[in-house]
C-alpha cells in the first residue's frame, strides 16, 4: 500500500460543514482545507468531489458475517465487500457464529479473515456467555487480551436475561474498558416464537406477539445494573418509544448507557408484515410508525447514539418457510447510508455532520476503536466515505455483494448514494463496485 500515490480530494463538503480539499498521503490524512493543495507533492492525483459529501469511514457496531459456520449465507470476505460498498471501513462481527466467538482463538480467526479480505477492518464481538448459553461467562479477558483486542461483548440473538450474570459481566469488563451490548428481550415475555409486534396487527394476523415491554423491562433493568456497577452498557437495536424513554432518563442520571438503532427500525414499520413475507421477519420486529417516528427523533437529538445495521444474511431456503418458521434477519450493510440519508437527512432531521457522528465517530468510540472514527482531520488514518447526497437509486437485490438476498429494500428508491469508500487511503469500493483489494490504483 505504500505505493499508493498521494491523492487530493477537491471540493467535497467535509462532514457537511463546508467545501474544502483533503490531502491523503501514505494512508493518512495529511492536510485538510486551504493547506491541502499547497502541501500536495508533485505526483499527487486529484479526485474532483464537487457536490459530494466527505464523511469519515462508517463504522458498524452490529454485523453478522456468518463465518465461521454458515459460509453459504455470508463469508467475512463477501460481508466485507458489502460493507465497503455501503461506505463502511470497520464492522463489528457478532459472535453467534459456529463455533461461537467465545474464545481468543475464534476471535483471532475472525480478525485474520478480515485482514485477509482487506476491505474493512473486521473487529470480532465476543460472546458474553459460553456458547451463548446464558449460563457462564465466556473468556472475556482472554478475548480482550488477544490480538483481536475485543472490547464489545454480546450474546446478540439472545438476551443475557439472568440479572446476576449480567451484573457480573458488566463488572468484569470494566477491567479493560469493555462494554456489554445487550439484545434486550425478556424471554418470558417474548419467547423464540414471537415474531410480530404485539398489537392490533398481530391480533389480526394471528402471529405470536413480541410486545415492546419485553425489550423495555430489560433496558430498564440493565441501566440500573450499569448504575450500580458503574459500568458501560450498550443497548443493541432499540426498537420502541418506551426504550427511548428509559435511555433518555438514564443518560440524564449520568448512567453510562449508549444505544443503537437500525436503519430498518427507522424506516420500515409493522405494516410490511401484512403479506406474511419472511423478508420482513426480523428481531426485534418492525414496530408501528409511532415508534419509528420516536426513534428518528431520538437519533437526531442524541438520545440514541449510533446507527448500526444488524446486517443478517440468510440463504434462501432458510427464509422460504412459513413466516413463523423462517429465520430472523435482513441485509443492511449496503443500504444503511442511503436509508439514513433518505429518512433523516433528506427529511431535515439530521445534517451530514450528525451522520458522521452517529455512523462513524460515536460507534468507533463506543467500541474503543483507536484507528477509526477520528473524523476528517489531519493526522487521522485515511478512512473516508464520499457520498453523493442527491443521487437517487432503486435497490436491486441481485446486485448485492452479499451472498444472501433477504433484502427488505429491494425495489425501493432511496436518496443518497455511496460514491467511494477508502480504507487507509486505498479505494475499497466505488459506485457499488468493489475495488481490487490488492491493486493500488486510485480513482483517477
Amino acid at each position, binding site marked *: 500500500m505504500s505505493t499508493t500515490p498521494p491523492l487530493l480530494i477537491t471540493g467535497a463538503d467535509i462532514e457537511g460543514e463546508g467545501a474544502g480539499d483533503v490531502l491523503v498521503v501514505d494512508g493518512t490524512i495529511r492536510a485538510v482545507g486551504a493547506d491541502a493543495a499547497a502541501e500536495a507533492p508533485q505526483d499527487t492525483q486529484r479526485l474532483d468531489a464537487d457536490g459530494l459529501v466527505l464523511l469519515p469511514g462508517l463504522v458498524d457496531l452490529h454485523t453478522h458475517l456468518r463465518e465461521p459456520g454458515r459460509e453459504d449465507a455470508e463469508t467475512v470476505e463477501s460481508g466485507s465487500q458489502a460493507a465497503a460498498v455501503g461506505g463502511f471501513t470497520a464492522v463489528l462481527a457478532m459472535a453467534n457464529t459456529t463455533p461461537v466467538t467465545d474464545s481468543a482463538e475464534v476471535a483471532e480467526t475472525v480478525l485474520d479473515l478480515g485482514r485477509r479480505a482487506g476491505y474493512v477492518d473486521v473487529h470480532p464481538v465476543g460472546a458474553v456467555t459460553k456458547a451463548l448459553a446464558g449460563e457462564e461467562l465466556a473468556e472475556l479477558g482472554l478475548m480482550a487480551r488477544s490480538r483481536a483486542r475485543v472490547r464489545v461483548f454480546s450474546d446478540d440473538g439472545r438476551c443475557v436475561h439472568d440479572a446476576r450474570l449480567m451484573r457480573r459481566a458488566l463488572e468484569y469488563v470494566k477491567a479493560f474498558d469493555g462494554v456489554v451490548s445487550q439484545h434486550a428481550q425478556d424471554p418470558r415475555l417474548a419467547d423464540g416464537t414471537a415474531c410480530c409486534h*404485539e*398489537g*392490533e*396487527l*398481530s*391480533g*389480526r*394476523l*394471528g*402471529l405470536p*406477539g413480541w410486545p415492546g415491554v419485553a425489550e423495555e423491562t430489560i433496558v430498564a433493568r440493565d441501566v440500573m445494573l450499569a448504575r450500580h456497577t458503574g459500568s458501560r452498557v450498550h443497548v443493541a437495536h432499540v426498537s420502541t418509544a418506551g426504550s427511548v424513554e428509559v435511555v433518555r432518563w438514564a443518560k440524564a442520571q449520568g448512567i453510562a448507557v449508549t444505544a443503537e438503532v437500525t436503519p430498518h427500525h427507522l424506516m420500515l414499520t409493522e405494516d410490511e408484515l401484512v*403479506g*406474511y*413475507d*419472511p423478508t420482513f421477519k426480523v428481531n426485534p420486529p418492525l414496530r408501528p410508525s409511532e415508534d419509528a417516528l420516536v426513534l428518528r427523533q431520538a437519533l437526531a437529538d442524541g438520545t440514541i447514539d449510533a446507527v448500526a445495521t444488524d446486517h443478517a444474511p440468510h440463504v*434462501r*431456503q*432458510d427464509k*422460504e*418457510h*412459513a*413466516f*413463523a*418458521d423462517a429465520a430472523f434477519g435482513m441485509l443492511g450493510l449496503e443500504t444503511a447510508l442511503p436509508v439514513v440519508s433518505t429518512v433523516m437527512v433528506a427529511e431535515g432531521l439530521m445534517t451530514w455532520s450528525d451522520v458522521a457522528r452517529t455512523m462513524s465517530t460515536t460507534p468507533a468510540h463506543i467500541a474503543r476503536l483507536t484507528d477509526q472514527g477520528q473524523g476528517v482531520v489531519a493526522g487521522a488514518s485515511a478512512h473516508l466515505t464520499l457520498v453523493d447526497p442527491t443521487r437517487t437509486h432503486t435497490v436491486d437485490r441481485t446486485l448485492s455483494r452479499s451472498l444472501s438476498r433477504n433484502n427488505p429494500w429491494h425495489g425501493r428508491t432511496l436518496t443518497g448514494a455511496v460514491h467511494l469508500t477508502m480504507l487507509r487511503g486505498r479505494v475499497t469500493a466505488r459506485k457499488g463496485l468493489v475495488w481490487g483489494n490488492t491493486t493500488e490504483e486510485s480513482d483517477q
Partner: protein
Amino acid sequence: MKHLLSIADLAPEEITSILDTAVSMHEVQDRQVKKLPTLRGRTVINFFFEDSTRTRASFEIAGKWMSADTINLTGKGTSVSKGESLRDTVLTIDAMGVDMMIIRHPASGAPAQIADWVDCSIVNAGDGTHEHPSQALLDAYTLRRSLGELEGRHVAIVGDLTHSRVLRSNLLCLRALGAHVTLVAPPTLMPSGVHAWAAADGFDVSYDLDEVLPQVDAVMMLRVQRERMSGGYFPTAKEYAVTYGLTPRRLGLLQDHAVICHPGPMNRGLEISADAADAARSLVLDQVSAGVAVRMSILYHLLAGEGDAQ
C-alpha cells in the same frame, strides 16, 4: 375468485353467493347416489401439515361427491421434516399439475405465502391462529338457515379468542353480512390490540357473559384448551367454567329464539355444559352436516367458475 385465503378477501355478495350455492349442494347429501360430475378430471390435494379429522374428512368428501380426484398428503410424511423449504415442498406438488391445494398449516399466513409461489388454487383450511374461512362460511350457513338473513342479528363469540382462527374468520364473515358481534372472554384470552381492532371494524368487547347473553340471537362457544392454564391465561378450569362457560343457569339467560354454535371439538364441562351442547337450540350437528355442502360450494366457486351448479 382463484384462492380462498381469508374472509377479508371476499365481498359480501361473494359470501352470499357461496352460501346460496351451498343450499343446492346440501340437497345432494340427501340423495342415494351422492355424485355430481362437476369436477371430473380435476385434481384436488388435501395438504395437511397439522392433524385434522373433521375438516379434512369434509373437504375430501366434498371433492369426491363432485367427482374430483382427491389425494391426501400430510406434512409429516414429506420432506418438510428433512430440511426442505416449504416453497420447495409445495412447488414439487404444484409441478405435478394439480388444480387445487387445500392447505392446513400450523403457521399463520402459510396458505397466503403458498398462493404466491404456486400456480394452482389455494384454499386455506386453517392456518395457525389466523383464519379458518371454510369454518366461518359453514357457521354463517348454519346460522342463516336457523335465523334467516344475518343483517342486524347479534352474535356473541366466547372462548379462547386469542388462539382461535375460527374467531378471526367468523368475525370478518359476520361483520361482512351485517351482523352485530360481541367478543366475550377474560382479558388474557382476547386477541392482541382487540380494542383498537374493535373500534376500527365496529364490534364490541365484553368481559361479562351474563350481561351479553340476554341480548344475542346466537352464541358461538369456542374451545378452550386446558393446556392454556399452564400459560397463566386463567387460574383453573373450574373458574373458567363458572365465569365464561355456557352453564345450565346461563341457558336461562338466552332469548327463546337464540341458538348455540360450537365448531368442535367440544370440552364438555369447560366452555360448554352438556345441557347446552345437547339442547334443542344447539346447532352443533347442523354445523358438521353443513360442512360438506359449504365446502362443495367453495370447490365449485374456485374450480368450476360461473354457471349452473348442477
